[in-house]
């Protein structure tokens, strides 16, 4: 059975009152959700609380889930909205990028002049640590798509569905996130 159909069956069983089915949903998605929320909010304890809240919200909204959509996309949409609310309450500007990106053209690749490659300066494990630290400092909307793409391994189409944005805009945003991380790493190097 495909993962998509499996999820739909679990949702149906949960709606019918089978608690174990929702337990299976939690087991399946707790880690991807924690990694997304954790990397987006930056605090482990807060991320655990938020992940719990998202599952509770998901359970209470299960009746509004439409089976023609992918469950994981729907779940991450709830999580994304939850985080937007959190940013809104903390007065962090999470929306400025939406107004900026009207066109979906990718910016050109910046080619450095003779400078030594940053990746050659670090070992891969050190590079990972540096990426992790830099990730915390890039704008939240860019961080969100970077995590979805590289940690949750979502396709551009899935991310576009979650955010309700064109695929081109999402591609642009992921590219911006990568370039920003690279630039910040270069600055620190």
């Amino acid at each position: 059975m495909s993962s998509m159909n499996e999820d739909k069956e679990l949702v149906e069983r949960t709606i019918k009152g089978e608690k174990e089915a929702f337990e299976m949903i939690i087991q399946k998605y707790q880690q991807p959700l924690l990694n997304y929320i954790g990397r987006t909010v930056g605090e482990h304890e807060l991320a655990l609380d938020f992940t719990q809240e998202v599952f509770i919200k998901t359970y209470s909204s299960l009746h509004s889930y439409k089976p023609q959509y992918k469950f994981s996309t729907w779940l991450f949409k709830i999580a994304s909205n939850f985080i937007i609310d959190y940013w809104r309450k903390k007065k962090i500007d999470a929306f400025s990028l939406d107004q900026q990106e009207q066109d979906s053209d990718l910016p050109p690749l910046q080619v450095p002049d003779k400078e030594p490659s940053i990746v050659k300066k670090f070992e891969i494990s050190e590079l990972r640590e540096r990426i992790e630290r830099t990730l915390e400092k890039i704008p939240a909307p860019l961080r969100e798509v970077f995590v979805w793409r590289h940690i949750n391994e979502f396709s551009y189409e899935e991310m576009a569905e979650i955010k309700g944005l064109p695929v081109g805009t999402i591609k642009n945003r992921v590219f911006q996130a990568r370039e920003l991380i690279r630039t910040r790493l270069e600055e620190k190097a």
Partner: protein
Amino acid sequence: MKIKKSKSTWLPAENVKNALEERRLLLQASENLPLWQTPPDFTQQVMARIFPIRVPLSAWLTAAYAGFGSIILAIFILLLVAGQNFSSLLTSLNYSLWNFVRNLSPVFVKLFKVASLFVKTLQQFFEYIIKAFASLTTIINPQVQIIIITIAIILIAFSIYGIKRKILIGEKT
């Protein structure tokens, strides 16, 4: 001269190659970031919050009966051990139960009186409101009445919409 020219076109190509290699390695590092782990009892924690364990009423009642029964039995045993006669014990128990009921009955009567008074007061209050509203409709002309009703409906609709929106924030799907 020729060598110099070919070197100058060769260098940007080398730079592009390096830039692409750098991005490839960065991507590789990004895709292998360590995963955050959930605590082993995370699922149970969430499940406990969604489905709090509710003890059924029958279990509470059974526990209460058992407790009460044990206390009575303990008192009986204690009194018998202390040398009390079983028949006199039953008589005194019967007497104290009767006294208890007799003392409690005026309280029930008073409670009933208070409740009936409260119902009467509520009835009178609503009658007064209905009368006031009826007299108001005779004073104000029909056009103004329609305007007031329309404004009230709009206000109610907006407040319901506002409350609904507040509840649904974060659940936009």
